[in-house]
């Protein structure tokens, strides 16, 4: 892209028109933009990143899809995520609700969150949306937008981790795990999260209870008790219960 112009070459006119074409059609600007974004975000699979990027700039994609693509450019633990969220918000702000009004409204916000949470069980998603108490007509300020998006991204990772956890609880790999074991894990998590923020000693205890040793002890006792009444639980049930715990820590915004 950055090759020098060669004057007095025989095909000068041809070269010039190609360059002009690339600039006129916006391709040159797009390449500059995508290259900057790749270098900044360092995606694990740049080829997939490129495909997503060009899918999102195609004319018929909605603002929501484009915002979603921006949000997914980097993991939410990376510092650049904050910048990307801002970028997505600014993009959505261009939406015009009516001739005079423009900005991010509840409908768009809900759509975006739903798009981000595609892999999360729908029951959980509904409950999460209830927490946001977001009406379709109301304007969404940036801080609400940011915390909503961030919650969804964290929840997504939380669901993935819960699935992995279920995988290790499912000892026979039958797709169903011993309910007693699942309950033990949940209980351990709930007690840990129940601790007061100011109580340092309890926080340390919680950390221990969720560690390998603490979890092992809890699972061991649960295993001992469960021999008589061992009912089974599917992954979905387990996920919903795990997410209940997560949702209990999500505070209502307004």
């Amino acid at each position: 892209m950055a090759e020098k112009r060669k004057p007095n070459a025989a095909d000068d006119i041809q070269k010039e028109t190609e360059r002009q074409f690339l600039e006129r059609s916006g391709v040159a600007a797009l390449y500059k933009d995508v290259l900057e974004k790749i270098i900044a975000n360092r995606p694990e699979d740049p080829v997939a990143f490129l495909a997503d990027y060009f899918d999102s700039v195609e004319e018929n994609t909605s603002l929501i899809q484009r915002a979603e693509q921006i949000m997914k450019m980097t993991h939410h633990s990376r510092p650049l995520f904050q910048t990307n969220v801002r970028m997505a918000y600014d993009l959505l702000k261009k939406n015009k609700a009516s001739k005079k009004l423009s900005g991010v409204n509840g409908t768009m916000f809900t759509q975006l969150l739903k798009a981000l949470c595609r892999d999360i069980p729908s029951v959980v998603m509904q409950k999460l949306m209830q927490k946001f108490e977001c009406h379709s007509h109301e304007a969404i300020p940036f801080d609400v937008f940011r915390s909503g998006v961030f919650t969804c991204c964290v929840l997504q990772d939380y669901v993935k981790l819960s699935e992995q956890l279920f995988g290790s609880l499912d000892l026979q790999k039958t797709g169903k795990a011993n309910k007693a074991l699942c309950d033990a894990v949940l209980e351990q998590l709930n007690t840990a999260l129940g601790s007061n923020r100011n109580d340092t000693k309890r926080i340390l205890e919680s950390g221990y209870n969720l560690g390998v040793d603490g979890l092992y002890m809890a699972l061991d006792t649960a295993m001992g008790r469960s021999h008589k009444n061992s009912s089974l639980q599917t992954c979905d049930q387990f996920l919903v219960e795990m997410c209940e715990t997560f949702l209990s820590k999500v505070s209502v915004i307004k």
Partner: protein
Amino acid sequence: MSMSFSGEDRFSMTAERYLGKHNVLVYLEDSIAQLLEHREENPKLNPIKFLSEYFDSLRDGNHTMFREYAFIKVTPHNRASFIRLFWKCFRQIGRKGDLLSIQEYHSLVTLLCPDFPYSTVQKTARIILLDDALDCLISFSDFIFAFQIQFYFEEFLDKCYEIYQSLLQTAHSPRNPVVVPSGAEETRIHQNSHNPSDGVDAMQYFRAIYPLCDRSTFSTPPADGLKEILFNVPRVSFYGFLMALAKSESINESIGRLPAKAELLDGSDSELTSPIIRMKGGKLRLEHPVNHNGPAVNQTGAQSASPSSAAGGENKHTGKGSLSQRSRRKKESSDESSDESDDDDTSSDTN
């Protein structure tokens, strides 16, 4: 948060290194070149739509059809995608149990890539066949797995050959006595130690080629796959080693584009019949279904044990180097087609 990011250090490398590692600039430049080329044919082309389609097919690995050899060879992703394309287009040959000569396989390859050199395909034949039997017919599954190893790891194999030759020379120089490993094979190996075809010490060979692994300049098989092959035999010949690479399920999985050998010819009939070759407007067109299912990962214990036993078998053949062994090896190549195809009668018809 323990979300695993195996390539965590991609954030600490320089931008140039990161872009180079993933061949980002190769694809950006190629996409522009393709865009300009297509614009000459069709001035009304929508550039954004074109680019969107370009990168979608790049991601899905459907981007190597009818491209020039220089492009197909340039990245590991392109090479692997081309091997998969070949499999998708021509697996009905394997299904029928047809055996083809290496020239015929080259013709098939050039249907997909007109300037694909004969040498790579010929080298593939040398993995499967002995030097004096290069005109033998080869089954589809033998060909495609050997072709995959030869094309995907070309630079690695060249290095391996150099190392093998230098080990052979060292072994035969009078200053370095031949190392005789202990064990049941001892007598046989000792008797044959002056025969060049008898190979090199497998462990010594492993130590010599191991430093090649995980170089960024070219693709190499995973070290575990090499261990699987070389830790289980006392001695190995170069082509025995290549044959074992081609038979290794774990190496095939690491490339990740072809199914395991047992499922190579599986697939619904509609899938198998849909790759139609037809002439349209004087231009050859191939239609094939877009298969979004990844290669089936189904490895049984018996299969994973096979590469090592295969290497052992190879070693014995080449160790003796007698005529009967050679003809056995020729036969082995044609036998395999009937082994894995369920219709034995068709393959014996072609013999």
